[in-house]
């Protein structure tokens, strides 16, 4: 017999306490949405034309390439890994597509670019899974090698997209820009894969406890290899989407892109320790960062304030995430109670 059956009043108090904690947790779960709403309202007050469909359209277009890469990064982060090479992959792919494949139709050159991204992702996966080099070191190495190769290919000069690429970047289908469609397709595919396929569930399982996942019969090395390959393809796609927008790529193309990409994932609630996160959250994180940047420009804010505001929001989100993790852990903690002999009959 438990104490709760013996002391209904105490049980009610404990239940009320647990409900309070759950309410706190719900509030924290919704905090990115609340933060987003606050940001939108504040910038809406500061800039006349901020609260318009055109601005929303611009935000999504500009966030699209970051969101696509961040979705790939989410797969990696879910396994408690990291991919620092995404910016370098963007640059290598764009350099190859513009320098060597510029005369080919986009239906040929872009898929080849994606294959290059896949290849680099597979190289990352090979070294992490087979050679067992830490993801941080492996992807740091491919970052430097990738940038070095791209700089060598371009001779550090700016490379330009051809007219077909620019036309694609400016093409609207059903009123939405091509980059939004690409982002949408990647989002839906990633959402379905993570939510509704065995592979997606295995990614979470590996991130939560790789040893347990291995004992349960999951092919952990194959899953890890797969997430780096996905990240490579997403980075390549993000680079191509960016190219369709900016028309050219200088030698800083993709430089340090890994930071906003990881920030987007973390802002959206993806844990750096693996096992927790969603593509919805990641896409939301990317949109939040771009909304802030857009709002800062549209409200003609002093440029010195940009990093302070963006860093402040990321810090707040991480702080909330830490609090959410702590409360979730408390709620999930197994409660062991020993009956007090004095309470017995």
């Amino acid at each position, binding site marked *: 017999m438990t104490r709760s059956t013996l002391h209904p009043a105490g049980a009610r108090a404990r239940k009320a306490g647990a409900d309070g904690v759950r309410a706190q947790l719900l509030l924290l779960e919704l905090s990115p949405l609340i933060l987003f709403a606050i940001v939108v309202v504040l910038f809406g007050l500061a*800039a*006349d*034309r*901020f609260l*318009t469909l*055109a*601005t929303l359209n*611009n935000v999504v277009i*500009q966030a699209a390439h970051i969101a696509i890469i961040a979705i790939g990064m989410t797969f990696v982060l879910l396994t408690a890994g990291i991919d620092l090479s995404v910016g370098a992959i963007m640059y290598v792919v764009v350099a190859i597509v513009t320098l060597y494949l510029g005369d080919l139709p986009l239906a040929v050159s872009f898929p080849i670019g994606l294959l290059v991204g896949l290849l680099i992702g597979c190289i990352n996966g090979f070294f992490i899974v087979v050679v067992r080099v830490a993801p941080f070191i492996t992807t740091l190495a491919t970052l430097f090698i990738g*940038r070095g190769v791209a*700089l060598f290919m371009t*001779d*550090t*000069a*700016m490379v*330009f997209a051809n007219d077909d690429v*620019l036309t694609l970047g*400016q093409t609207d289908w059903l009123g939405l820009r091509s980059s939004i469609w690409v982002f949408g397709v990647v989002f839906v595919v990633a959402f379905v894969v993570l939510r509704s396929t065995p592979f997606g569930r295995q990614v979470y399982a590996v991130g939560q406890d790789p040893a347990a996942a291995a004992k349960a019969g999951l092919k952990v090395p194959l899953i890890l290899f797969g997430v780096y390959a996905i990240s490579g393809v997403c980075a390549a796609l993000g680079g191509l989407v*960016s190219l369709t*927008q*900016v*028309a*050219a*790529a*200088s*030698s*800083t*193309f993709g*430089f340090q892109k890994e930071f906003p990409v990881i920030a987007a994932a973390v802002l959206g609630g993806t844990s750096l320790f693996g096992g927790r996160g969603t593509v919805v959250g990641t896409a939301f994180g990317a949109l939040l960062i*771009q909304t802030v*940047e*857009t709002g800062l*420009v*549209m*409200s*003609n804010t*002093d*440029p*010195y304030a*940009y990093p302070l505001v963006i860093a402040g929001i990321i810090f707040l989100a991480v702080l909330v995430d830490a609090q959410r993790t702590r409360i979730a852990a408390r709620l999930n903690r197994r409660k062991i109670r020993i009956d007090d002999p004095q309470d017995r009959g």
Partner: protein
Amino acid sequence: MPMISRRSFTVGTLMSLGVAGMPMFVRAQEGKTVALLFDSLVSPFWVSGIEIMRQTAEAKGWTTLEAISDFDDNKQFEQVQAMIERQVDGILIIQTDANAVIPAIRAANEAGIPMVHFNRPPAENEYYSVAIQADNRKITQDTVQFMVDEARRLGGTYKAAILIGDLGDVNAIQRRDGFFDIVDQNTDIIEVVARIATEWNADKAFAGLTNAFQANPDINFLFTSSDFMLPQIQQVLRVAGRWHKRGEEGHVIFGAFDGDATAYQLLVDGYLDADGVQNLFLEVEMAFGAFEAMWAGEQPDKLLLDPGFVIHAGNLEEVRDEMWGYVVWQKEHG
């Protein structure tokens, strides 16, 4: 036979030795080895810069050793030490951080190796080195003044946007200050409605300018702190329906800074009104001249300024030979 005094003999002997020694000095200069330490080659300016340095050094009979630090101050300091170990005759450095380079200056001073900072001066410090820098603020002032004169000639009021570089880069700050020096004196016709921090990043320039045009579709006065962002600006203006030549309805008065090949092409085509040019050829001459002066025991000023110039449709043919981007453009166009 006239008598030669002891003094005349001594002076004559010293002069003769001096004249006789000149070829030896020249020969000694010919064999010099100079280290070229770049932090990156991220823009055509730096690519052209290193090319001009190589050619100038070769013409002087010098050997160059090159290294790139990829914006890593620690790596660059190690490169400086390596060059000191190799006992080079001079170190030309383009540092990322004005303060982080100070230990490198001290190390070069201790080794007795002259150091020249190219295009970016170090922070105030007690050690000796020479910096060559474009007079960013003055060149920008002159460029923006040309734009303002054009605006006054055309009449009306203007909404302005500026694309600012990296706020940690002294060149970017000086260019921003040069812009505001002039527009602040002309607030009767110019209102600055967008200050876009690009961090020298083309993506951010593109997104920032797109957003600026979204917030203020009537922006008609635009300055970019570097020519390397011109393709992205062109793209934004095209999409916004504002990419018009001088004299056409809806033309945005447009100024830039650097003097690269794209800027030259846009000046020729009539889209760009004015470009502040860093005289790269002069800067390389000044840098190498500073080495020669220091090898000769002289101590040039710690900061030597390239006055630069403004190029526009009115003086294009007259001054384009001084524009490094024109030389690149000529190579690209045969």
